[in-house]
């Protein structure tokens, strides 16, 4: 089980309370598809992904980004059982979606950068540490049921 200090929990909750899940989720997913274009391989049916502008404005990208970050919210509500929270999603990403878990790490790092750009100096080194830890734990949990 992952240990979270009181400070880490507070840093995570403090940032999360101010996050616009729809905007942040959309931005994070769009950046994944822009910065690491090979990740578009998982989204063939999303329509126009031909340019950064197209990706950012794509409604399916926005909707899926929101879905992904909403699920992150579940992890934050259940910091003491992230493994359990992501068990079914892990199976799904392995068996149905066939996503290389390395992509979870990429998205996690991008989310941290998005938060940094939104929160500025408020996103202190201690804050970054807590969030890098969180995205790492989430990525690990999502990879756990792979076989």
């Amino acid at each position, binding site marked *: 089980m992952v240990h979270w200090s009181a400070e880490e929990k507070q840093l995570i909750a403090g940032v999360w309370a101010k996050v616009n899940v729809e905007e942040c989720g959309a931005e994070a997913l769009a950046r994944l598809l*822009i910065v690491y274009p090979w990740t578009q391989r998982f989204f063939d049916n999303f329509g126009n992904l031909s340019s950064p502008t197209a990706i950012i404005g794509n409604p399916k990208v926005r909707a899926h980004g929101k879905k992904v970050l909403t699920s992150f919210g579940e992890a934050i509500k259940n910091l003491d059982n992230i493994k359990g929270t992501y068990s079914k999603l892990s199976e799904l990403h392995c068996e149905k979606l066939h996503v290389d878990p390395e992509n979870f790490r990429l998205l996690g790092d991008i989310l941290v950068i998005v938060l940094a750009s939104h929160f500025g100096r408020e996103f202190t*080194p201690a804050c970054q540490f807590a969030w890098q830890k969180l995205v790492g734990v989430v990525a690990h949990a999502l990879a756990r049921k792979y076989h």
Partner: protein
Amino acid sequence: MLTAEDKKLIQQIWGKLGGAEEDVGADTLWRMFHAYPPTKTYFPHFDLSQGSDQIRGHGKKVVAALGKAIKNIDNLSQALSELSNLHAYNLRVDPPRFFSQLLSQCLQVVLAVRLGKEYTPEVHSAVDKFMSAVAAVLAEKYR
């Protein structure tokens, strides 16, 4: 790898740091040591407390090297040749992990903190690619 547009964006964004390079360097290193404690294993001889002179000094060196690379972005191999030797034969820091991932991530967080919305997806992409290119050059002589 780096398109003309990427190079333009990188030079622009670096220009916006206007004199804050030393702070950017120190902030980047401190965040890296804080977020990824294993990176400290490469600096057992340093005082790694917050604000230490050694972190500031080393941060300044790193950012100066990146600045030089950006000025010579069309010939990274030559611009970073000495550093490439140093990292291959003396320092032997794991290049893909250290530079591409950890240092790059922390530098980008620092840039995002400072630039906010100006750290657009296009700029993000260009910087990420640039750091990958730097990592590749620094690793050229590893084996």
